């Protein structure tokens, strides 16, 4: 059974709203945007065919407000909803509300969202499906002695985790068996205090672990494929900074095994549409299920780069009930794609957010360079939402070529008006460990000092900056340079001549 989508409500903002809107437009589908008070003139609103105001800047009043989103879809004659990522993209309640309103949900079934959303349920499901899990031990009634015995079986170091926990709270890494009893006692106290639930469980701690995820895609006719991996080990405090495919560490055998495991994981929950299965991979190449993200990921362009597919269009056709237009064998992973996330933040001030107006934002454009962004020059990165300015995605034949291409693209990226992580990104991708493909998930946090660019530019750059400022100053105070000899036409004036509305 297939349905024809004619008008998609994009229940999101920023670059992902622009991305979805573009796919809709190319498919001849109308795109309806929504916006909060803070986004009335945002790029996704400007580019949409129609836009509906939701409410205040706070997400709860706008992008998280299910009733208003459903109303907006109905009032605009939409027949489908795309949630993007973040906000309500993994809300079973929103998916159900959309479906209940007679609209097509461009995402997985609500049941699959729920199954993967509860982490302990997901772990049990994956165990039954034969997906490798990090070796662990869980029991509501075990004594400390039983935990010690289990830790012996699992192997040190182990992580003591709160069963009812989350967000890294209450986690202790134990390397010496002698320290385990004290760690259990401490973690139990903390868990009871923080979550009202003193239950603990053990998991092996993976040293030098790599974050590698598999993109999966399923249609509603039982076809499930994987679209290879993305390595996202370059993280700062669990936030992905750089993503790439292929992973520089995977062997073809491990890649194939992980792909098969991810497909099994998706099948186990009756998955349809785009999803991502995250694994932690040991330096030896053992891999363990972490969790499944039941939505499009920020880093989906990496997979688009190496497979040649358009995942958003595929989401839309799949939601319409169409079959995947290919089998597993027809998909190949080719070349190398890297994505860098450009943020408005200050690496020298502990990556403090740096909201502000992009007085100028010059994005790179060159063969093999793709920029996904929700802002242009003159737009503001507000303090209400995430600090992303753009994703810069490059593809080339080899990893080395791609890194060089990305470095050049970052060189060409100009932002005036706020502080960004541009120089940090350049330092990271040019670090010998990154070039060698040896970055694990702890790398950035433990090598931060090497990755923060020096405060002071070199003397030549400073001189050139002073000359640029002085040339600019001439346009602000022309009287100061009319000394009878300044007959050179002002270069800035000429530069802008054709860009001014009122020329």
């Amino acid at each position, binding site marked *: 059974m297939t349905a024809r989508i004619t008008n998609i409500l994009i229940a999101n903002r920023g670059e992902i709203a622009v991305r979805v809107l573009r796919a809709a437009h190319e498919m001849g589908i109308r795109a309806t945007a929504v916006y909060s008070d803070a986004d009335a003139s945002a790029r996704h609103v400007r580019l949409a065919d129609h836009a509906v105001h939701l409410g205040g800047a706070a997400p709860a009043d706008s992008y998280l407000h299910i009733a208003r989103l459903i109303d907006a879809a109905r009032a605009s004659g939409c027949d489908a909803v795309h949630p993007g990522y973040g906000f309500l993209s993994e809300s079973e309640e929103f998916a159900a509300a959309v479906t209940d309103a007679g609209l097509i949900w461009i995402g997985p079934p609500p049941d699959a969202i729920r199954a993967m959303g509860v982490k302990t349920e997901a772990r049990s499901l994956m165990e039954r499906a034969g997906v490798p899990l990090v070796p662990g031990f869980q029991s509501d009634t075990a004594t400390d002695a039983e935990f010690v015995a289990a830790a012996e079986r699992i192997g040190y170091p182990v992580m003591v985790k709160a069963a009812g926990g989350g967000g890294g709270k209450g986690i202790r890494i134990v390397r010496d068996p002698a320290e385990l009893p004290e760690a259990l006692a401490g973690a139990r106290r903390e868990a009871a205090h923080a979550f009202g639930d003193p239950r603990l469980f053990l998991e092996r701690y993976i040293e030098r672990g790599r974050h590698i995820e598999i993109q999966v895609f399923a249609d509603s006719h039982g076809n499930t494929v994987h679209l290879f991996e993305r390595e996202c080990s370059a993280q700062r405090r669990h936030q992905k900074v750089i993503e790439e495919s292929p992973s520089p560490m995977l062997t073809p055998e491990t890649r194939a095994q992980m792909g098969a495991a991810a497909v099994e994981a998706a099948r186990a929950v009756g998955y349809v549409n785009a999803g991502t299965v995250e694994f932690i991979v040991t330096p030896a190449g053992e891999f363990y299920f972490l969790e499944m993200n039941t939505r499009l990921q920020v880093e989906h362009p990496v997979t688009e780069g190496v497979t040649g597919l358009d995942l958003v269009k595929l989401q839309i056709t799949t939601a319409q009930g169409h079959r995947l237009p290919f089998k597993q064998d027809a998909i190949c992973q080719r070349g190398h794609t890297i994505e860098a996330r450009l943020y408005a933040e200050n690496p020298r001030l502990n990556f403090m957010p740096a909201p502000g107006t992009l007085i100028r934002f010059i994005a790179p454009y060159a063969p093999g360079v793709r920029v996904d962004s929700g802002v242009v020059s003159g737009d503001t990165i507000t303090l209400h939402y995430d*600090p992303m300015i753009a994703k810069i995605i490059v593809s080339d034949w080899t990893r080395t070529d791609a890194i060089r291409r990305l470095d050049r693209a970052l060189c060409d990226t100009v932002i005036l008006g706020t502080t960004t992580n541009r120089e940090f990104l350049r330092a990271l991708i040019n670090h010998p460990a990154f070039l060698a493909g040896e970055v694990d998930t702890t790398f950035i946090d433990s090598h931060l000092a090497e990755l923060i660019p020096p405060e002071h530019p070199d003397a030549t750059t400073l001189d050139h900056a002073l000359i640029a400022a002085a040339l*600019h100053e001439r346009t602000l105070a022309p009287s100061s340079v009319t000394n009878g000899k300044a007959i050179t036409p002002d270069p800035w004036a000429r530069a802008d001549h054709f860009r001014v509305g009122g020329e």
Partner: protein
Amino acid sequence: MPTYSYVYNGETYSVALEALADGTYRAVIGERAYTLRAIPNENGGLTLAFDDGDRATVYASSVSGTRYTAVNGDPVTFTLPEAVKRSSHKAHAGDLTAPMPGQVRDVLVKAGDSVKKGQTLLLLEAMKMEIRIAAPADGEIQSVRVKTGDVVEMGQMLIGIG
């Protein structure tokens, strides 16, 4: 020669810039002199073509006393000397200022309260990141300059403590 002064990282730099009759510019910074052409580039930038063959792509913009520039993409932000003077009435030793632009999420104290070192006084939020403003030492709250919901700029005075 018209001369412009800018402050960077607390130091003041002066650049003398002269437009010559042949369409080039002469710039003097300290003991260094440059001769260059300034070719209008895309997006309102300039290619500085120096007579020794070197080149740099630059952009510049201004917002009141701040001058934003980028040289081959690398940002360098200057302040005008007079703007530095204006903003130089420094906060008092006991003033707590905003370490980032953001929105005040919660104010947990009021003037007159006694507080202990490390006690959370105020929560500031931006872009899903929450910053806890804590008392740097035991003391008494002298003044609270913001309220919940206020949007503050980086460096803005929040709480006076003594």
